[in-house]
C-alpha cells in the first residue's frame, strides 16, 4: 500500500519535468484517442445531415415560397396535404410501387441465386454480367428504357408489330396503368441483381453437410429447399429486403426521368411530388412536409430492423 503511495507521490513530483510525455500518455488513452478520431466525422455528419434534417422539419411549419418571407403556419402544410388528392395519389403509388417491385425483386432474385448456385463454366463472368443493371448509372439505363418503351419506334412495340402480335403496341408510358406497370418493371430490372447476388452469397455460406444429412433423412429437392435452404436464407433475405424497401420507397430518379410523374400526376411517388412542389412550384414548406410524411414509414422499418438485429 505504502509502496504504491510512494510511487504515485514520486510520479507527482516528477510530473512538471515530464510534461510532454504526459500529453502523449493522455492521447494514448482509449477514450481520448477514440473521441479525437470520431469528432471530425461526427461534426461533418451533424453539419451536413443533422442540420438539414432538422431544418427540413422547421421548414415544414412555414409557408415559404421562393423570394418571399416565410410565414409560420403550424401544421397548415400538413392540413393542405391531407386535402390534396395528388398527395394521396402519390402515397398510394409509393406503397403500390414499393410492394409490387419488392416482391418481384425478392422472388426473381431468389430464383437467380438458386440458378447461379450451381457449378458451371464462366460463372464469374456471368455474375459480373448479371450485376450490370445495378451498377450502371440509373439515369442512363432509364433513358435507354424510355427509348425501349417508346410507343412508335421503341424496341417493345417494334417487336410486337414485326412478330404480328399487335398492329400497334400499347402506349407504355402514356396511360396511368401502363405507366405504373412500366416503372415497376424498370425498377425490378435494376434491383433484381442486388437480391440475386446477395442471396447467392447467403447460399454459399450454407454448410454442405446440412444438405447431406437432410438427404439421408429422406428429404427430396423440395424438402431440402423448404427445410434447409429457405430457413438458412431468411436472415439474408430479411436484411436485403429491408434495404431494398428503403431504397424503393424513396426512389426519385426513375420516375423523374421515365414519366416525370405523368400522365396527369398518375405515377408521382412521394419523392417526385416533393420535388415538383418545392423546386417546380417553389413551395419549399409544402415540399418539406411531403418529404417528412415519409418518416413514419422509415421509422417503422428501422424499428423492424432493430428488433431483428436484437434477436441475434
Amino acid at each position: 500500500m505504502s509502496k504504491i503511495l510512494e510511487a504515485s507521490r514520486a510520479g507527482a513530483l516528477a510530473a512538471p519535468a515530464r510534461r510532454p510525455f504526459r500529453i502523449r500518455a493522455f492521447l494514448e488513452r482509449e477514450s481520448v484517442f477514440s473521441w479525437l478520431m470520431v469528432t471530425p466525422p461526427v461534426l461533418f455528419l451533424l453539419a451536413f445531415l443533422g442540420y438539414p434534417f432538422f431544418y427540413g422539419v422547421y421548414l415544414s411549419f412555414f409557408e415559404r415560397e421562393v423570394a418571399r418571407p416565410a410565414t409560420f403556419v403550424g401544421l397548415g402544410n400538413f392540413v393542405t396535404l391531407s386535402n390534396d388528392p395528388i398527395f394521396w395519389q402519390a402515397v398510394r403509388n409509393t406503397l403500390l410501387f414499393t410492394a409490387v417491385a419488392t416482391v418481384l425483386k425478392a422472388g426473381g432474385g431468389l430464383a437467380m441465386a438458386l440458378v447461379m448456385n450451381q457449378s458451371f463454366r464462366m460463372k464469374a463472368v456471368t455474375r459480373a454480367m448479371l450485376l450490370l443493371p445495378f451498377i450502371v448509372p440509373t439515369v442512363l439505363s432509364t433513358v435507354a428504357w424510355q427509348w425501349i418503351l417508346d410507343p412508335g419506334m421503341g424496341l417493345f412495340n417494334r417487336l410486337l408489330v414485326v412478330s404480328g402480335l399487335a398492329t400497334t403496341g400499347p402506349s407504355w408510358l402514356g396511360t396511368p396503368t401502363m405507366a405504373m406497370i412500366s416503372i415497376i418493371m424498370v425498377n425490378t430490372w435494376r434491383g433484381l441483381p442486388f437480391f440475386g447476388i446477395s442471396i447467392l452469397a447467403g447460399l454459399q455460406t450454407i454448410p454442405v453437410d446440412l444438405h447431406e444429412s437432410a438427404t439421408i433423412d429422406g428429404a427430396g429437392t423440395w424438402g431440402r429447399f423448404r427445410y434447409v435452404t429457405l430457413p438458412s436464407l431468411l436472415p439474408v433475405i430479411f436484411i436485403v429486403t429491408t434495404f431494398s424497401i428503403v431504397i424503393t420507397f424513396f426512389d426519385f430518379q426513375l420516375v423523374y426521368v421515365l414519366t416525370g410523374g405523368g400522365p396527369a400526376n398518375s405515377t408521382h411517388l412521394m419523392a417526385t411530388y416533393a420535388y415538383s412542389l418545392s423546386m417546380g412550384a417553389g413551395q419549399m414548406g409544402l415540399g418539406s412536409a411531403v418529404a417528412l410524411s415519409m418518416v413514419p414509414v422509415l421509422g417503422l422499418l428501422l424499428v423492424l430492423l432493430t428488433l431483428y438485429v436484437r434477436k441475434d
Partner: protein
Amino acid sequence: MVGELTWRRRLFGLWLPLLVFVVIALFPFTWMAATSLKTNAELYNPKANPMWIQNPSLVHYIDLLKETNFLTWVANTMLVATVATFISLLLGSMLAYPLARMRFRGAPLLAIAVAVTYLIPQTLLFVPMADLIGRMKLGNTLSAVMLTYPTLLVPFIAWLLMGYFKTVPKELEEQAMIDGASRWRAMTRIILPLCLPGFLSAGIFAFTLSQNEFLYALLFLSKSSVRTVPIGVVGELIRGDAFYWGQLMAGALLGSIPVALIYSFFVKYYVAGLTAGAVKG
C-alpha cells in the same frame, strides 16, 4: 437413362433460366449500342429490321462530342467521384476504427446513430440541402456535390469498414504497443494495411455511387460546364419534347462504360462490399 436425366436437368435447371436472366439483364445495353450506331434515316424507318444495323455509323458519337460538353461532363464526374470517395474513406475510417476496436463512452449510441444515418435517404434532405448550399453560395460549383456526396457515403462506408476492422485480432495491436508503438502508429502501420480489401470494397462502392448520383447534381449543378454525366445527358440531350435518341444512346453508353470498366476490374471487391451488409449481418 441417368445421363439423359442429368442432361435435361442441366438444360431446364441451369442453362435455359440462366440464358433468360442474362438476356433480360443485357438487352437494354445492346439496344443502346445498336441505336447509337444507326443513322437517323434507319432509326426512324418503320420498315427496317430493328434487330439489325444496316449501315453502322459513328455520326451520333461525333455529334455528341462536337455539339455538347460531354467530355467536360466525364471529367467533372471523375473528379467529383474521386474527391468524394477520398473524403468519405477518410471520414468513414475515422468513425469506424474506434467503433470497431475500442471501448469508449458513447460508443454504442454512436454505432446506432451511424446505422440510422445510413438509412436516411436523400429524399428527406434535398429541400433544406438546396437551401443550405444556396446560402453557402456553392450553387453551380463542383464543391457543392463534393461536400454533399460524402453525407450519403460516410455512414455506409463506416458500417462496411467496421466489419473489416473487427476481423483483425486485438493481440496484433497490443503486441505493437508493448513494443513501443503508439496507438496511432499501431493503427496506421499494422491494422489499416491488413484491411486493404475492405478499403477497396468501400472505395469501389463509393466511387460507383458517386458516379450514379442524380438528385443533388440536378439541384446544385445547372450550368452546363459544371454538370456531371447523368444530368448532362438528361438535361441537355432531351431538348424540350424532342428526343435525339441516337445521341442520347451514344451518351448513355459512353457514360456507362467507365463505370462498367472500373467495376469489372474490381468486381470481386464490389460483390464483397455488396454482400457484407447482408451476410455478415
